[in-house]
């Protein structure tokens, strides 16, 4: 593709990115506001962060959120990767159409429907609602996102590598762990990160499926927001934004280094 960069293109990018980032930047700036009023600047202060760290209900909610996120992302990554393998490797099996429908539908399903239906399932089987029901619900919707991410990597995967390994006597299971998994690992890792952040963010499905005693951070923030905008919420939001931003930047740097390494290996291989 030709790379002329017209003034129109630059302008639309500048305006677009300003629209995307300005609200978040303002939110972060006002978390350092001295005043209790969020919209009036009264000087720099970190007192809202201090008061946040003394707020036990926020800290409890953060723990619940992290536990649910780590566990559900891990299980969702395993299930989602299996789902992606099933979709790309087995083009014909009974009920494949239903399977692919169940993979794609949760991506667009309104959260209120997913949340309500999950809750009614848990009630129907008499399961106590709490941290585990939230985790099960999160696994279910995030595994579909993982499946889509991993699948997009698998379709471009060179099957002859696997065939070579199996010709040399490796079993399919060994082949998967020694050949396939290392190649699709970046997609699996970004699938895990996606599942983790989806779980970290979720308000609606958690609200439906949680029980007494299990409050996640978004649920805590939401109930606080309904009472009004406070710098303390801005501070909590800023911490969440910082965690996610650092995570994404580390992941992309690691990805880039892996690519550089691979290019170097390929060059070395070509020289020999």
């Amino acid at each position: 593709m030709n790379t002329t960069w017209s003034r129109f293109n630059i302008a639309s990018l500048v305006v677009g990115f300003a629209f995307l980032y300005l609200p978040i930047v303002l939110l972060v700036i006002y978390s350092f506001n001295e005043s209790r009023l969020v919209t009036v600047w009264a000087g720099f202060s970190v007192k809202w962060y201090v008061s946040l760290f003394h707020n036990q209900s926020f800290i409890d909610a953060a723990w619940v959120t992290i536990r649910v996120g780590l566990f559900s992302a891990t299980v969702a990554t395993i299930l989602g990767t299996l789902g992606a393998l099933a979709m790309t490797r087995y083009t014909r099996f009974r009920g494949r159409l239903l399977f692919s429908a169940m993979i794609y539908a949760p991506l667009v399903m309104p959260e209120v429907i997913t949340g309500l239906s999950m809750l009614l399932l848990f009630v129907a089987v008499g399961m106590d609602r709490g941290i585990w029901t939230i985790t099960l619900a999160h696994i279910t919707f995030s595994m579909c996102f993982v499946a889509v991410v991993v699948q997009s990597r698998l379709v471009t995967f060179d099957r002859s590598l696997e065939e070579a390994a199996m010709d040399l006597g490796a079993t399919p299971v060994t082949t998967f762990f020694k050949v396939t998994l290392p190649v699709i690992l970046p997609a699996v890792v970004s699938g895990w990160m996606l599942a983790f952040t989806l779980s970290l963010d979720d308000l609606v499905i958690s609200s439906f499926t949680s029980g007494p005693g299990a409050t996640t951070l978004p649920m805590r923030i939401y109930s606080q927001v309904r009472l009004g905008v406070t710098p303390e919420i801005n501070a909590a939001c800023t911490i969440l934004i910082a965690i996610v931003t650092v995570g994404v930047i580390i992941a992309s740097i690691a990805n880039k280094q892996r690519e550089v390494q691979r290019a170097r290996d390929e060059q070395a291989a070509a020289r020999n």
Partner: protein
Amino acid sequence: MQRLISSIASRLVIVVPYIWLLVFFLVPFFIVFKISLSEVAMAIPPYSPVFDLSAGWTAFKDSVSKFSWDNYIWLTQDPLYYRAYLSSLFIAGVSTVLTLLVGYPIAYGMARAPATVRPTLLMLVILPFWTSFLIRVYAWIGILKPEGLLNQFLMWAHVIDTPLNILNTNTAVFIGIVYSYLPFLVLPIYSALEKMDYSLVEAAEDLGCPPIAAFWKITFPLSLPGVIAGCFLVFIPAVGEFVIPDLLGGSQTLMIGKTLWNEFFSNRDWPVSSAVAVILLLLLVVPIVLFQRAEARAQESEK
């Protein structure tokens, strides 16, 4: 033995995620449907069960005759519900068009940027998507409030004299949806535009086609799969959106996700909220099937 393990392993690859989705995704929909046919009761759980599958076939047949469509009849009688459905479709439709108007130029600008800058631009679009949805919606409250930052800025710039009333109106809901769903639309359009062979446009321009006509005749049709996928990704979840109309919309903003939430959490009427969910799902079945087909076709063509 090795063979046996391998064949079991390959079967598990399909069976495990399949069963998980059947149990936690498909079966719950039948339960929702079942409960939408039952009566509300002052109990925990707050509905009287319609049938008990363990009681056998005759009991099942017996209970089918006791199905009550009252909840659905109720939905047609109270204008609140169908107005909420229509207004959800309307708000989601308008928002999708607005998102396309904002998102297409961004995707186009990204695809036409120098190849070295593109990965950075891509990351810049994805990054806000990783930040919490709730946080991004919350950020707009401080901006759109009557004494908020937008009004402060506009009054400082002498564009307006009296603060605009944006928060708690449908305008705020539109802004919220466009803002939250923008990456969903930009990414598929960008990937369609990036794959496109730009020499086609150059050829057209060399043959005397004005740039704008070349855009509409070549670039836009080629990006259409991305546009369609992106519009579905915005429209379908936006119809059932709860957080945005709840936090940014006002009391006159009717959206079905909010109605369902209130029916469930405030009125504690589980049967009626199940009926609301069933109708919402029926409304969305056509767009969801179309979306799923488009995705499956895109995956096939990648191979």
